[in-house]
């Protein structure tokens, strides 16, 4: 593992599988009566959020706390940033306070890369979503969810997603989730197809390791997992598509379309969902939809990432018997 997690492309196949395997161990901790591990005791994790994001921030917060790290939440609103402080000065401040890891969410693509390479801070940088660039921990939790569902929690250990057919549908152009997923799923051996109206596919996509289709119905029967991306209604005003209803008709997933998917195929959504837009309530609430599971898996996956970046080579999870002994001392 590298010191930072900026792009899903930074992960080798072995790195990625190690993270997923570690996340499985972490997930088992969540089933224990006491969900906390002492692994990162005394380490400080800063959640540096320049963009509103409740779900990602609390997911990282829960992950760090379950590893016993000290967590500092820093959001741009109402902080020195809203008074015009630069990213550099904010970073120098966090460095002075002794941050071991900075989890950053930023509206500008490349801001985490800049933070990691500028020399402003010495700790690890974890990209929690930057502009329309990447969101690597989302891709990891998505891969974790796929492996659990398509291979199995125990059967999946040590394995990748070779041969699995994954379809990602929606606003690819503006999606950091799609970019990270394409990188990671390719690394894990999956076959990825992107589906979107041509206006929402980036110029230059032909070099990406995936297929592109404009026809959702043609792709669905050949998909083991279909990931529906959130489509912002405002895109309509920039003429990316004519109306919300037309988008929903052509690219939304409803019950009829879901019925065309293979029997064991799953529906995924990174959230927050626009019910009625890219996904109908019928699909969102069905057993095949993993949206809520993805949230739970997000905590385990982020625990794994923080542990591997900060914890070093010590075993993450001590055997349960020993743990009890520790507590009894």
């Amino acid at each position, binding site marked *: 593992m590298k010191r930072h997690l900026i792009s899903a492309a930074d992960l080798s196949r072995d790195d990625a599988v190690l993270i997923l395997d570690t996340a499985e161990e972490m997930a088992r901790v969540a089933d224990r009566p006491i969900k906390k591990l002492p692994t990162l005791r005394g380490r400080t994790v800063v959640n540096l959020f320049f963009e509103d994001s409740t779900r990602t921030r609390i997911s990282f917060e829960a992950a760090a706390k379950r590893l016993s790290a000290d967590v500092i939440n820093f959001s741009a609103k109402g902080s020195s940033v809203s008074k015009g402080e630069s990213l550099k000065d904010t970073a120098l401040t966090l460095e002075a306070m002794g941050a071991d890891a900075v989890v950053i969410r930023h509206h500008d693509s*490349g801001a985490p*890369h800049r933070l990691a390479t500028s020399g402003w801070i010495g700790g690890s940088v974890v990209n929690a979503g930057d502009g329309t660039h990447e969101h690597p921990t989302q891709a990891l939790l998505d891969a974790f969810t796929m492996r659990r569902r398509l291979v199995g929690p125990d059967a999946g250990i040590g394995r990748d997603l070779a041969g699995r057919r994954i379809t990602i549908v929606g606003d690819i152009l503006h999606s950091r989730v799609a970019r990270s997923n394409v990188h990671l799923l390719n690394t894990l051996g999956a076959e990825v197809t992107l589906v979107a109206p041509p206006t929402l596919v*980036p*110029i*230059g*996509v032909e*070099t990406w390791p995936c297929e592109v289709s404009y026809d959702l119905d043609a792709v669905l029967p050949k998909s083991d997992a279909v990931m529906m991306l959130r489509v912002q209604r405002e895109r309509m005003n920039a003429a990316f598509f004519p109306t919300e209803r037309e988008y929903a008709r052509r690219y939304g997933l409803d019950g009829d379309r879901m019925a065309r998917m293979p029997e064991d195929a799953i529906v995924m959504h990174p959230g927050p969902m626009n019910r009625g837009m890219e996904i109908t309530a019928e699909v969102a609430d069905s057993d095949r939809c993993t949206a809520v599971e993805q949230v739970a898996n997000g905590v385990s996956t982020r625990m794994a990432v923080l542990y591997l970046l900060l914890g070093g080579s010590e075993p993450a999870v001590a055997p349960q018997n020993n743990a009890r002994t520790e507590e009894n001392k």
Partner: protein
Amino acid sequence: MPKILIRGAKLLGGEPQDVLVDGETIAAVGTGLSAEGATVVEADGKILLPGLVDLHTHLREPGREDSETVLTGTRAAASGGYTAVFAMANTFPVADTAGVVEQVWRLGKESGYCDVQPIGAVTVGLEGKKLAELGAMHDSAAAVKVFSDDGKCVDDAVIMRRALEYVKAFDGVVAQHAQEPRLTEGAQMNEGVVSAELGLGGWPAVAEESIIARDVLLAEHVGSRVHICHLSTAGSVEIVRWAKSRGIDVTAEVTPHHLLLTDELVRSYNPVYKVNPPLRTERDVMALREALADGTIDIVATDHAPHPHEDKDCEWGAAAMGMVGLETALSVVQHTMVETGLLDWAGVAERMSFRPAGIGRLSGHGRPIAPGEPANLTLVDSAYRGVVDPAGFASRSRNTPYEGIELPGRVTHTFLRGRATVVDGKLA
């Protein structure tokens, strides 16, 4: 003023000759000229060029003196071998009145390092809505001949047409910053393979090419000349080549950075590579070099764009667009054009002195190195190799993309009307 004898210089890269400067003019050119009463500069085989002329410089004064002033900018220009620069109009306040252009012109006179020819804005406040008083700027002491809203495109076709027509009355020219605004909303870098991966807003080539296509046709229709600023794409080259073949009076410039750098550099997210128009692809770079060599692109212009440190020491999205260029332009041209065999030194003189002075109708610059001509001269040590160190820049700003890169060539002497502004590579 004392006499100066430049001994053994290769004029435009030719055979070594001596050049005797007497006062403000060149007195004699030949071999074995007498050094009597003259300060001798041993050129020792260095290249002697006419003083360079930059048709596209941002001096930032008035308004952004924290990034550059007329004085620091002209010092940078002299260091780079320039004896005249055209100062762009996007200052604060905008150079859209006779008062502001005269202020810049006067500051240039006072600086003494090179001549400063102000460019006037085409429209009031660069807003693209209402023509600025172009005639008043021309009639002012600054005698403006070049008009540009650079930084912004004159995108309204009617305003552009009227401007092209109107400046014919005094032999002016409109220099267009070709950028279709709607196609470049939120644009952060060249739109293509790299922008798709990096998730940065794309600046498509078509946004430049569509405006150039429109403007050459407008120029043809109204019988005006038009100049294209910082042409950056292979497609733009094709359009200008077509227009010239049709006899349309179009001229075009390319920046040194577009002759060397590509959008692959943006992968670093280092804002020193953020510039407008953006760095393009390898294919574009090669097309631009070829076009500069065959004359489709007429000149090299720096688009010297100084910015204070904090405007580049930040995340990409928050950073300012632009690079300094005056002090590295000649080296980049030597590296990309001369050492690749695409241009000889006479070709460099044509594209960095004669033609830019001609396009800007600037008298006294871009003249042959011959007796009776003004002694605006640049002596270049083309054998020199050195690593670019921005700490040594005369410019107030340091936003160069070439830091730490080895480039050939060094200006050892610059003479402005017989007065040395640079001696042995140092400002005089």
